[in-house]
C-alpha cells in the first residue's frame, strides 16, 4: 500500500464515517432508548424523561445525517447500493424518526387532552427507528442477503439493538434523574443488559460464520491472540456493569455516569470488532472503500472543511452538554 492521497483519503473518510456512526449510536441511542422506555412510565416521569433529552436530541440526530452524508459524499456508489437494498427498513427508520421528532415537540404544545396520543407516538416512533436500525445492521452483517434466514437474523438483531438502546436510555436516566425514576432506571438497565449481551454475541458469532473471509481474519494465528483482548474486555465490562446495577443508586449519587460510559465503551468495542471484520469493504465482499470512493479532488475539499469544522463543533457540543449538566428538572423555554 502506497501512502499517497488517492489511497489515504478514502481510508480517512472510512474512519470519519465510522466515528460518526459510533457517536450517533451512542448519542441518539440514549434518546431513542428513552423513547422506548416511555412504554413503562407514568405521565410525570415522561415529562422528566423528556427534560433529560430536550436540549440534546436535535444535535444527536444530526450525527446520523453526518454519517449518511459521509457515506453519500465520500462513497456515492456504496450509498446507492446499500440504501436501495435496504429500501423498506430505511423507510421504517425514517417514518419512526419523523414521528418521534415531531411528537417530541407536539406533545408539549397541543391541548393537554391530546398529549397522551403524542406520548404514544413518541414511543412507537422511537421503537420503530431502533428496530429498523438493528434490522439493517443484521442484514448488513450477512452481506445484504435477502433470504429468509437473513430476515430472521435481522429481526433478532433488531430486538437486541432496541434493547441495547433501552439500556443506553436507562443509563442516561440514572445520570440525569434522581429518586424513584432513577431507581426504576436501574431496574430497566439490568433487564435490557441481558438482551444487549445476547445481541452482541449473536452478531459476533454470525459475522465470521457468514463469511469465510472474516473467519480467516479472526481465527488464525497470531491474529486470534492479538484480538483476544477485544471480546475479553467487552465481557468484563458487561459483567462489571451488571454487578454495579445491584449497588445503584449509590450513596451520594456516586458513579451516576459510570453505566452510561461503560455502555458507550461496550458499543465502541463491538463497533471496532465489526470494523476490523469488514475492512476494507464498505459493501460486504462487493465494494472496497477505494472502489466506492468519490474523486480525490472532491474528498480533499471535504476534508479541508471537516478538519476545521468538526473540532469546533465537538467543542461546542461539549459546551452545550456542560450548560445542561446536572439533574433534569422541568423543561422550559427559559
Amino acid at each position, binding site marked *: 500500500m502506497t501512502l499517497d492521497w488517492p489511497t489515504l483519503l478514502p481510508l480517512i473518510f472510512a474512519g470519519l464515517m465510522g466515528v460518526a456512526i459510533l457517536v450517533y449510536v451512542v448519542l441518539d441511542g440514549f434518546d431513542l432508548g428513552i423513547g422506548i422506555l416511555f412504554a413503562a412510565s407514568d405521565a410525570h416521569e415522561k*415529562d422528566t424523561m*423528556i*427534560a433529560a433529552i*430536550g*436540549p440534546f436530541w*436535535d*444535535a444527536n*440526530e*444530526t450525527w*446520523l*445525517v*453526518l454519517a449518511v*452524508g459521509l457515506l*453519500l*459524499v465520500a462513497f*456515492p*456508489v456504496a*450509498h*446507492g447500493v*446499500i*440504501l*436501495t437494498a*435496504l*429500501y423498506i427498513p*430505511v*423507510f421504517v427508520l425514517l*417514518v419512526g*424518526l*419523523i414521528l418521534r*421528532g*415531531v411528537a417530541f*415537540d407536539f*406533545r*408539549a*404544545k*397541543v*391541548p*393537554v387532552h391530546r*398529549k397522551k396520543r403524542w406520548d404514544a407516538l413518541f414511543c412507537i416512533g422511537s421503537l420503530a427507528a431502533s428496530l429498523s436500525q438493528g434490522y439493517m445492521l443484521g442484514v448488513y452483517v450477512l452481506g445484504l442477503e435477502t433470504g429468509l434466514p437473513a430476515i430472521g437474523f435481522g429481526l433478532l438483531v433488531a430486538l437486541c439493538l432496541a434493547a441495547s438502546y433501552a439500556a443506553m436510555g436507562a443509563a442516561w436516566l440514572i445520570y440525569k434523574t434522581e429518586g424513584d425514576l432513577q431507581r426504576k432506571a436501574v431496574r430497566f438497565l439490568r433487564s435490557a443488559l441481558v438482551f444487549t449481551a445476547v445481541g452482541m454475541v449473536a452478531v459476533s458469532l454470525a459475522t465470521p460464520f457468514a463469511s469465510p473471509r472474516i473467519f480467516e481474519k479472526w481465527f488464525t494465528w497470531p491474529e486470534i491472540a492479538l484480538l483476544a483482548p477485544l471480546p475479553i474486555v467487552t465481557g468484563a465490562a458487561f459483567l462489571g456493569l451488571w454487578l454495579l446495577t445491584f449497588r445503584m443508586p449509590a450513596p451520594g449519587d456516586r458513579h451516576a455516569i459510570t453505566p452510561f460510559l461503560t455502555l458507550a465503551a461496550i458499543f465502541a468495542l463491538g463497533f471496532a470488532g465489526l470494523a476490523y471484520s469488514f475492512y476494507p469493504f464498505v459493501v460486504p465482499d462487493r465494494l472496497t472503500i477505494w472502489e466506492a470512493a*468519490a*474523486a480525490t*479532488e*472532491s474528498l480533499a*475539499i*471535504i476534508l479541508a*472543511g*471537516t478538519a476545521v*469544522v*468538526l473540532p469546533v*463543533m465537538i467543542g*461546542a*457540543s461539549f459546551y452545550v452538554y456542560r*450548560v*445542561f449538566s446536572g439533574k433534569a*428538572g*422541568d*423543561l*422550559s*423555554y*427559559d
Partner: protein
Amino acid sequence: MDALILSRLQFAANISFHILFPTITIALGWVLLFFKLRYNATGDAAWMRAYFFWVKVFALSFALGVVSGVTMSFQFGTNWPGFMEAVGNIAGPLLAYEVLTAFFLEAVFLGIMLFGFRRVSNRVHTLATFLVAFGTTLSAFWILALNSWMQTPAGFEMRDGVAFPVDWWAIVFNPSFPYRLVHMLLASGLTVSFLIAGLSALRFLAGDRSESMWKALRTGVFTGAALIPVQIFVGDMHGLNTLEHQPQKVAAMEANWETRGNVPLVLFAWPDEEARENRFEIAVPNGASLILRHSLDGVVPGLNDYVGEHPPVAPVFWGFRIMVGVGLAMLALSWTTSWFLWRRAEIPRLLAYAYAPMAFSGWVATLAGWYTTEIGRQPWLVTGVLRTEDAVGPVAASNVAFTLAVYVLLYVVLMIVYLGVLTHLALKAAKEGDQSPLPGVEDRALAQPMAGE
C-alpha cells in the same frame, strides 16, 4: 405507473413538505434575534413576550424541518443512486459543507437558544440566537448552490460519464446562483413576515390588544411591505437570468409556442401540449416581449426550438402565475395595512380578516415558484448532463408506491396538526394577553410540558 414517475412524486412530496419549514426558520431566526436585540436595548418585556411566543413556532418548525431533512438525505440513495454516481463528486462536497457548517451550528446551539435563557448569560443566549439564524442562512447558501448548479452547471468536466470538479469557485457561484439565493432568502423573509402578521391578526381578531401582539404585528406588516417590492425586482432579474441560461424554461413559463417578436403576455390560458397551442387565451399584446426584452418587438424564444427537450408546459405556466398572483396580493395587502398602521396606529377589522388567511401565503408562493423552476428543468436532472430517467434506482414500483402512500398520509396528518397547533398557540396567547408569567423576568419557570398547558 412505473418506478420513475413514482420516485419523482415521492421526491416532490418529500422536498415540498421539507422546504416549507426551512422557509420559516431561515428568516424567523433573524426575527427572533431582532426581538431579542430590541429587548436588550429597551428592556421592554413585550419584546421578550413576542420572542417567547415565536420561539415556540421556531422550535416546532425546526423539528419538522430536521425530520423531513433527514428523509431527504436518504432519498438520494434509496431512489436516485444515479444522481450521486454521475455528479457525486460535485454534489457531495456541497452537501457535506451544508451538514458540517450549517446543520451542526443550528442543531448544537438550538438547545441553548430554546432552553438556555436562564442557564447562560444573556449575552451568550443572544449569541446562540445569532448562531442559529446564521446557521440556517448558511444552510440555504449551500443547498441553493447545489440546486443552482443542477440548473446551470459550471466549473466541471466529464470523464467517462462522471462529472469531475475543475473550478470550485465556478461551481458554487454558477450563473444562476446569486439570483436564486437572494430570491429564496427574500421568499423566506416574506413567508415569515406574513406568518407573523397573519397570526398576530388572528390574535387581534380574538380580542388580543396586548403590546406584544402589536409589536409582532407591526414587525410583520412593515417587513413584508419593505421586502415585497425588492422581491418583485429580484424576481424579474432572476427571470432574465433564466432567459439567458434556460430559455426553454422561460418559453414554458410564458406558454410561448413559437420563437418570434411581439410576443403577448399570456394572463390566462390552458396550454395544450398535443396541439402545441393555448386554449382560452387572454393576453396583453406585446407584453412578454416588453418584459423579457424591454422592447415591443423583442424576440422571445419559443417551445418549437426545443421539441422533446422542453419541460411540461401547463405546470410551469401555472406555477409561475400562482407565484406572481400571490406576490401581487402580498403587495396590495401589506402596503394598505402599513398605511393604516403608520397614519392611524390602528388596523381595520376588515384588513385583519384579510391578513389572517394570508398567514401561509408565503408557502403557496414559495412552492409555486419552486415547482416552476424544478419542473422547468425537466427532462434534465442536471441540465445538459444527466436526465432524470437515467438516475432512478432499481427499486420495485410497488415498493415505491407503498412508501409514497405512507409519506403522503403522514405529511397530510402532520400538516393538519402543525396548523392546528399554531392556531391553538395563537388563540391561547390571545386569551392570556400580556398576563402570563414571563420567564427570566419573574423568577419562576414557565413550566412547558406541565398539566396546565
